[in-house]
């Protein structure tokens, strides 16, 4: 009674600490940060200037005014505020670009007809309530050089709009209320395809919805299946009680451990914690009812299993992915806290007995594990390394409707050559840096602002035209406006100066929506949109800046890194088992099915052309952490009937727990579940059915 009260108090304290410190992050994409500080800085600064953050975009030109009004009302009710697509450019900085207008355009702007039309237009606008400020435009920029520059650089099909009317832009409310975003998304989806919409809010809400459903579904099914297995194998409610309460302790300790290192916990990690039941089942079942006569050998098996599981989880800690680190921290803390939780109940655990299940088995010759390992290794060499690639789509959930919107806006960005923007390192001028890419046909040169850069001679001609036409245009303008009762203080000299390519790109970045040049790590970069992304992006020194390319490259890099970590973890497990088992044949037996599974994955990947993703590698780490346990316990206990029954129970529990994840909506969880099940089932079957013949002279 006293013991239970102490445990209850500890759980209450953990729950209180979790409740006080818990902060959830729904979009797993936010866990990704480039390791290279230069690449990370370039990407962050490009995205900072980007008009896409904290906003949603709605193309609603196809709606009637009444429909548009209804939609505006729904958006306003949800807290979305319409804002301009572009921030107002500083007129002085804009006019600094005057030398980039062709001289012919200057002549046209300074003509009497154009000047009269400009004054009439501005007076009409000034006649609107509050419109008088429009007259300031005439004062600052009598000829209308600014609007002509904007038309030249940001007009239809240029510099950020990608053709067609620009979408309406709405600033997202903060904090985001998912229920309100859901209403907005439903309204927009109902109007699709006449309306197109995009924004991080929709990804956040869809991921939140998917995770909420997955948590409920996976946890309920896992609980029911585990309950069924335990009732059938033990008929002892105390074991279930220990598993249930212990898993609650694992969950709380796992979440708190993450909170020690990170301010926010990714929602998908919370769903992953439902798999703790499987790890805990293994520990609990194998530690329960140990037969006195076989205690030493059983403990070797148990520590082999727990040690390899911890090693499998620990290797993920060495990776750079925050998401995987959080899963690893939660797993390690969850498993250790469960073992600590069992300490006060060790006598209860000792007294539990399991139903034994008679299993058919084949006693294999002692050379078989070596032959299997050798054949698998040779097969792996023959098949060759599979392609490793992770795309952003595999990393977060999006509904089919949102997927169609992503395609639509990707096409618009691609049309403006802004889908795959990269930073190109430059030692000389920006155009010299871009020339090789243009020569290869990778760069859409005509869409790059440098294609509209005027060379020094053309700039000189423009500045000369401005000087020549300035006084005449100024006098005419003053005469027209005074006759309309307007008084203006017109500038005495024309705007503009000669610009170099770098200064031109910097100015354009200041007045437009996108940055075209940057400096990081003491190097200069010019930004450019690519027609297609070359496979050797990093080898060319190109830094992806578009979210799609950036995250694809980042995830692929993380996948490769995790692949190496997986191999390192595998080597660590071999070393650990060599130390604890001290028998080469047993060690080969332990790893034989895992190597065969690895060969199966490599062959499947090569034959179907499916690349291995970061989730597969994470799954492999879990497969060796889980599957090695079955063979390690089986071979350590000489395939004892009770221990094999325990393996059957823990194996079925693991397959059920991870199999349930295959029903998840979130692609990370679905893929993780499938990988672990595909890897664990052959290992489980091998451990249950293939028994190692004793060495000559080995005691029974």
């Amino acid at each position, binding site marked *: 009674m006293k013991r239970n009260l102490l445990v209850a108090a500890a759980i209450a304290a953990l729950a209180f600490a979790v409740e006080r410190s818990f902060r959830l992050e729904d979009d797993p994409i936010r866990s990704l940060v480039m390791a290279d500080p230069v690449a990370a800085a370039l990407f962050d600064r490009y995205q900072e200037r980007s008009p896409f953050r904290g906003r949603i975009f709605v193309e609603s*030109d196809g709606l*009637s*005014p*009444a429909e*548009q*009004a209804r939609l*505006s*009302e729904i958006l*306003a*009710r949800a807290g979305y*505020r*319409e*804002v*301009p*697509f*572009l*921030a*107002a450019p500083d007129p002085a900085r804009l006019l600094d670009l005057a030398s980039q207008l062709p001289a012919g355009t200057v002549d046209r702007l300074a003509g009497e007809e154009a000047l009269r*039309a400009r004054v*009439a*237009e501005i*007076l*009409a*606008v*000034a*006649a*609107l*309530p*509050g*419109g*008088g*400020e*429009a*007259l*300031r435009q005439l*004062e600052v920029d009598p000829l209308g050089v600014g*609007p002509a520059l*904007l*038309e030249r650089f*940001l*007009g239809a099909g240029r510099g950020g709009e990608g053709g067609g*009317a*620009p979408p*309406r832009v709405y600033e997202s409310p903060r904090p985001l209320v998912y229920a309100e975003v859901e209403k907005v998304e439903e309204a927009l989806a109902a109007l699709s395809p006449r309306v197109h919409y995009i924004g991080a809010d929709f990804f956040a809400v869809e991921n939140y919805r998917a995770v909420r459903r997955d948590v409920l579904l996976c946890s309920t099914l896992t609980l029911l299946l585990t309950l069924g297995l335990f009732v059938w194998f033990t008929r002892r409610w105390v074991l279930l009680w220990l598993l249930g309460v212990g898993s609650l302790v694992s969950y709380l300790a796992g979440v708190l451990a993450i909170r020690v290192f990170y301010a926010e916990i990714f929602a998908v990690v919370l769903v992953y914690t439902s798999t703790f039941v499987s790890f805990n089942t293994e520990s609990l079942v194998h530690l329960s009812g140990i037969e006195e006569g076989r205690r030493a050998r059983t403990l070797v098996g148990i520590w082999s299993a727990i040690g390899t599981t911890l090693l499998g989880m620990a290797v993920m800690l060495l990776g750079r992915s925050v998401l995987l680190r959080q899963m690893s921290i939660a797993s390690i803390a969850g498993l250790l806290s469960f073992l600590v939780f069992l300490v006060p109940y060790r006598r209860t655990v000792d007294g539990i007995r399991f139903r034994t299940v008679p299993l058919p088995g084949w006693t294999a010759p002692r050379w078989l594990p070596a032959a299997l390992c050798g054949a698998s290794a040779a097969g792996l060499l023959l098949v060759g390394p599979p392609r490793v690639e992770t795309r952003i789509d595999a990393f977060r959930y999006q509904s089919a409707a949102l997927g169609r919107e992503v395609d639509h806006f990707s096409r618009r960005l691609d049309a403006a050559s802004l889908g795959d923007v990269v930073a190109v390192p430059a030692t000389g001028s920006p155009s010299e840096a871009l020339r090789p890419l243009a020569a290869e046909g990778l760069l859409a040169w005509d869409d790059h602002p440098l294609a509209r850069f005027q060379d020094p001679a053309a700039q000189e001609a423009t500045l000369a035209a401005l000087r020549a036409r300035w006084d005449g245009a100024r006098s005419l303008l003053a005469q027209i406006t*005074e006759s*309309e*009762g*307007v*008084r*203006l203080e017109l500038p005495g000299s024309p705007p503009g100066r000669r610009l170099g390519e770098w200064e031109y790109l910097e100015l354009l970045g200041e007045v437009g929506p996108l940055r075209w040049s940057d400096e990081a790590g003491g190097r200069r970069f010019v930004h450019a949109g690519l027609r297609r992304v070359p496979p050797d992006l990093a080898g060319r020194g190109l830094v992806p800046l578009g979210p799609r390319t950036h995250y694809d490259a980042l995830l692929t890099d993380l996948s490769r890194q995790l692949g190496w970590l997986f191999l390192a973890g595998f080597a660590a497990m071999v070393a650990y088992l060599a130390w604890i088992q001290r028998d080469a044949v047993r060690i080969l037996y332990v790893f034989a099915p895992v190597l065969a599974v690895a060969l199966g994955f490599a062959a499947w990947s090569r034959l179907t052309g499916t690349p291995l993703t970061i989730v597969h590698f994470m799954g492999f780490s879990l497969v060796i952490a889980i599957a090695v346990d079955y063979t390690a316990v089986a071979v350590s206990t000489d395939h004892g009937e009770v221990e094999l029954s325990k393996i059957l129970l823990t194996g079925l529990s693991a397959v059920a727990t991870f199999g349930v994840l295959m029903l998840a909506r979130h692609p990370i969880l679905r893929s993780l579940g499938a990988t672990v099940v595909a890897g664990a089932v052959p290992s489980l079957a091998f451990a249950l059915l293939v028994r190692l013949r004793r060495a000559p002279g080995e005691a029974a």
Partner: protein
Amino acid sequence: MIAVAAIAAVILAAAADPAPLTPEALRARHAGARSLTAEVVQVKEGRYWARPLTSHVRLRWTPGRVEWETLDPVPSTVVIEGDRVQVVSGGNARDLGAQARDPRFAALVRFLRALAAFDLPALEGDFVLAWGPREVVATPRPGSSLSLVRKVRLVFGDDLEVRRIELESPSETTRLEFQRVERVR
């Protein structure tokens, strides 16, 4: 007898009381409107005007479309339809194009559209509204792109129809007197 007279006076006074100006009352008054036409006298004073500029204007509103027709002194028409702004002046019609996309101007257009439609949610998106007995004073929310407007005072009649609008912007004040307002439901 005196008591009856007093009660009758109270009842009559209550009956004569105009409807109070509240967001709900204003919404109800303007709900279901299909069009609005008004004759407006506008007076502008400020830094750019050599003398107070008085103009006569015809305002026409239908859902999604606002026409601001200046009859004199310089005839011109500005048509706001969705995000499109067209200026008709001296027999020529021209879409404002790049200028209409200027964020400050786009914000002003959005404001005028919402004002003409009495679209309270849209106005509240950009402004903080202070409700008085017969007037509403709107000041732009902090961080609003409505830099061309500092304060708007809307004065309503007993019938909750707008009578006067005073608008302060950085370079001018505009006073609008509404005459012959016709609303079709």
